[in-house]
């Protein structure tokens, strides 16, 4: 018999913790953000989602967002996130994949 002892190559990780936001009790009357990162097709998904939400919750208002930085994909900066958080009650997002 032979024993081969080796060291673990996997690094420990820095742990982050974020508490999820409280969910809405209803979508009726709220303002929803529709966030698109500009990857192809994501806008079409949000178009249809907006239409469906409007059918089911006629009082819902919508605001459209894209990130302020990026290229193929546009991302939200901290300032973007602050602004969105101040303007809407919830967000539906698509990154297209």
């Amino acid at each position, binding site marked *: 018999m032979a*024993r081969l002892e080796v060291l673990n190559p996997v*690094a420990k*990780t*820095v742990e982050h913790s974020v508490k999820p936001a409280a*969910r*809405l009790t209803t979508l009726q009357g709220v303002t929803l953000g529709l966030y698109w990162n500009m990857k192809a097709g994501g806008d079409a998904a949000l178009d249809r989602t907006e239409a469906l939400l409007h059918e089911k919750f006629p009082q819902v208002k919508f605001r459209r967002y894209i990130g302020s930085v990026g290229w193929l994909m546009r*991302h939200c900066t901290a300032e973007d*996130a602050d602004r969105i958080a101040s303007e809407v009650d*919830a967000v539906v997002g698509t990154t297209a*994949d």
Partner: protein
Amino acid sequence: MVELERRGVPTVLFTAQTFVHDAQRSAASFGLAGLPLAVVPLPFTNQKPEAVHRMAEGAFDQVVAGLTQTVDVRPGAQPPRLEDRFAYDGDDLLDAWTLMRADFLRRGWSDGFPLVPPTPRAVEALLRGTTRSPGDIVATLEPGFGIATIEKLAINAVMAGCGPEHLPLLLTAVRCLAEPKMYIRNKAMSTGPHAPLVLVNGPKGRVADVNAGMCALGPGAPSASNTVLGRALRLVMMNVGHTYVGVSDMETIGSPLKYACCCAENEAESPWEPYHVTRGFAKDASTVTVHFVYGICELHDFRSTAPEDLVGVFATAATNVAQVGTGLWLIGRRADPRTKTEEREHNTLFICPEHAQIFARAGWGRREIQEALYRAARLPFKTMMLNKEPKALAVAHPELAWLADHPDLPLPVVEDPGCFDIAVVGAAAGRGAYFYGAGEPVTLPVED
């Protein structure tokens, strides 16, 4: 989405079935396991609007639920802590090694080639390549926020086949990966074939026997150091940065460049100052440059004897619009939203010594080549936009809306001439290499 949740905004994210694991791991690494998803069968890309609409309709109930139902934060979703060392018992050491390799493969810790066993003795020997302590932290590597200690880097270096002489170069390459401007998260997690091209300059590359000449990118015995260094960086991305295929590395096809892509500049046969001098370092400094690249195109020309003719050939490689970076400046810049670092899309040219001499004999340096290539490598606006989102152009460059009325206007494929990085690499015969880059290279000095 996690940043919005942090601000008290409930979110739900459309995600294709294939990317569910990736989205969950990504959200967990940012601190919110269980981020609500609306799962659709396919990515929205390359779908007609009506097909996307049908998928959105199918996921509508999930959208509503994601915003209104309590989030399952799944406290147990994090992988369990593992022991620091493992033992494999076999009939003999070869048998035990076979068990180790199979176990490491099963755990996803291997690049697929046989791994050198990272025994405590082998790791201790490798650590002689640095003056730093095993517990010193070199960086935190995304996308998994892995803590890159000297010891973990050494363990992966042993597995790749490195010796102590390679360790300072590897540590420098890892520091390059962790630079904010590198935006490694984007390159590690993409569906694109981002491979770290590692270019070594200066005396420490020669000490480590990094090949700059014949078959510098391998394979073969002269490039053994190149191979193990490049391989070690990939293993570090996996086991330290937690870039694992199907978990966080969602690449569509993959690339052989991702196994190892490393060489030195052939400073001895270059008619110009070394590449790292153009990056602001002293000539006698040792540096490592990492530039993520998508792919490679040969720069073959046995006929040309004039610089203009060579540039004409090189420009044909640069005008490949199927390559994502070509003309990408039209729709913005690669940017990390956290640090707001922006990258222009660079491409790296390895010019062979014979071609370099043709340029030099005519009095051309790098700058002349860059400017000539910038003028020659142009495509009509309509061709450049074939695979780009028109709305992204409108957002990134509203001042260029007039281009829509000039579809045949030739435009440069990069933002400015400096987006062509040039190094002299290789041996005899007129064959260079054009690397389609992803963002900007990062160069750092080698430290022991």
